[in-house]
């Protein structure tokens, strides 16, 4: 199994080298930015598994992060912190498996709006549970230090990137791409479409569950409106569309770009930042549907025979 440098090795290297270098700057600010960046990389890579490869575009991926965060909060104090985070990931994965059975039968744009509705539904359910429990936002004191969280998040980003590289090379990846290109044809050629979609959906929920738990540990409090904020889903989609969601490279490029932009603008001009995101999203959908990654490919191959997706 040989790695294609630009598609596979480059994103892995970017994440690994980035993770090792940021702490050398010796400043908590950079650790914080790195933590956020790697969180987004992990989220966007997970999203790519189901939405990039299988073409089932999820506009509600925040739901898995929210569930991961909430399970961490619910198990807070009862089990060790890291175990709580793992419970969050497993919970998110099981949730995906459970709702995936009906939800993954819904195709195309209906799936897209359904995922959004599902995330909002989960948000309001959690809000109501919390208000029944009499909690309106929870403080979590005594969480791990930023440095520890940083390394965990960097590892998650690496795992996420690696998972896209690996899945693309498996039969699973080829099957998912076939489903994206034409689900009916894929089925007739022997691709077990429903099973593959479910596996992809569940896989794509695991890391976000952990990432959500890390976000909660970092801020030290949990508030459903924030943990299930649709802007998180929107940002994931925008990253993947700007970067490209054909391989592991796109999400890394997209995440770096948006995190830099957000560092520049978010704290002072949040609305300007969001407007720019909207404009970028529209621009890329219209003019460069394969993202920066696709533009790179186009530059690289000048011949008429355009490359396919490079299945191995």
């Amino acid at each position: 199994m040989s790695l294609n440098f630009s598609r596979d090795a480059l994103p892995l290297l970017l994440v690994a080298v980035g993770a090792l270098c940021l702490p050398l700057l010796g400043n908590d600010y950079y650790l914080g930015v790195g933590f956020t960046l790697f969180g987004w990389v992990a989220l966007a890579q997970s999203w790519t598994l189901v939405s990039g490869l299988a073409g089932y575009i999820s506009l509600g991926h925040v739901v898995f992060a929210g569930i991961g965060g909430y399970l961490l909060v619910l198990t807070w104090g009862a089990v060790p912190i890291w175990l709580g985070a793992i419970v969050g990931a497993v919970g998110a994965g099981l949730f995906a498996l459970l709702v995936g059975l009906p939800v993954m039968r819904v195709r195309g744009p209906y799936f897209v709006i359904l995922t959004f509705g599902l995330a909002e539904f989960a948000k309001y359910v959690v809000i109501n549970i919390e208000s029944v429990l009499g909690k309106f936002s929870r403080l979590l004191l005594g969480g791990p230090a930023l440095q520890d969280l940083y390394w965990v998040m960097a590892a998650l980003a690496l795992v996420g990137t690696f998972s896209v590289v690996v899945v693309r090379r498996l039969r699973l990846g080829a099957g998912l791409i076939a489903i994206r290109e034409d689900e009916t044809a894929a089925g007739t050629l022997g691709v077990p479409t429903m099973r593959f979609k479910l596996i992809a959906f569940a896989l794509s929920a695991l890391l976000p569950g952990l990432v959500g738990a890390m976000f909660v540990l970092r801020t030290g409090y949990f508030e459903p409106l924030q943990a299930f904020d649709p802007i998180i889903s929107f940002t994931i989609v925008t990253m993947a569309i700007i970067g490209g969601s054909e391989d592991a490279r796109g999400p890394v490029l997209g995440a770096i770009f948006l995190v830099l932009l957000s560092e520049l603008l978010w704290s002072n001009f949040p609305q300007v930042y969001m407007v720019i995101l909207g404009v970028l999203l529209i621009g890329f959908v219209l003019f460069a549907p394969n993202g920066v990654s696709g533009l790179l490919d186009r530059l690289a191959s000048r011949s008429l025979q355009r490359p396919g997706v490079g299945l191995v």
Partner: protein
Amino acid sequence: MDILLSGQLLIAALIIGSIYGLVALGLNLIYGTMRLLNIAYGDLVMIGGYVGYWLFTLAAISPIIAMLVAGVLTGLLGAALYFGLFRRQLSGRQSIERIEANSLLIFFGISIIIQNVTALAFSATPRTYNALDSLVQIGEISITQSRMAALLVCLGLSIFIVFFLRLSPLGLSIRALIQNRTASQIVGIDVNRVQLFAFVTGFALAGLAGALIGVTEQISPFMGFPFTIVAFVVIILGGLGNLAGGLLAGMLLGIIETYGVALTSANLRSILIYGVFILVLVLRPEGLLQKRRMT
């Protein structure tokens, strides 16, 4: 139990239902004729709300007039977006699936832009104002003028549009386009003109409904999304592209929501709406509603 049987609750359900029906009608026009999934739709309602608010607050202009201004403004916005972004998409040779998926993402971007530009301009603080708030008495039921106006305008306008589509030549072209795009072109329908009309009308209806809704609800830059969701529930319940079915479905959802909340609690309103939304999509997705193709 008494409250459930009261006319007060029924009229509340009808008011909400008629608003939903009108909002969904516009979305349905755009989806049915062009397969564009406008998830910025609720944001147009929000724009309408602000138009009503500012016209009343600054110039004491009645919401009834503001409604027309809002319709014209969102209609113009629709025309600009149609020419700027969508005409080229629609005339290209892309598959319907592609157009649907792209339009969803593009409108998502538009939605975020509209919301945040509004927040930049008017701040994110929710606003309310009191207009048309004297009570109208009908038998034992009393409702405010504003809600009465919402009911009459929404119902009247919806019914007018449905009949317009049934009876006028332009309406016939729109229905033809909903049925079959290629065939419409072949029989000589000016598809571009009909699309523009449907697009602008759809946008205008949202703005118009927004000016009415804004009288009774809090107006904020982020108030729109629930209306988008509601409109989608309604058109999926009623049948995509089926305009009259959408009106009935709007009423149905108004009743489900009003009585559901009355039976439980106001906190559960969002859960109820999103729950119906999920159930509808899972149980009656595209395949069950559209005529099946033989593959």
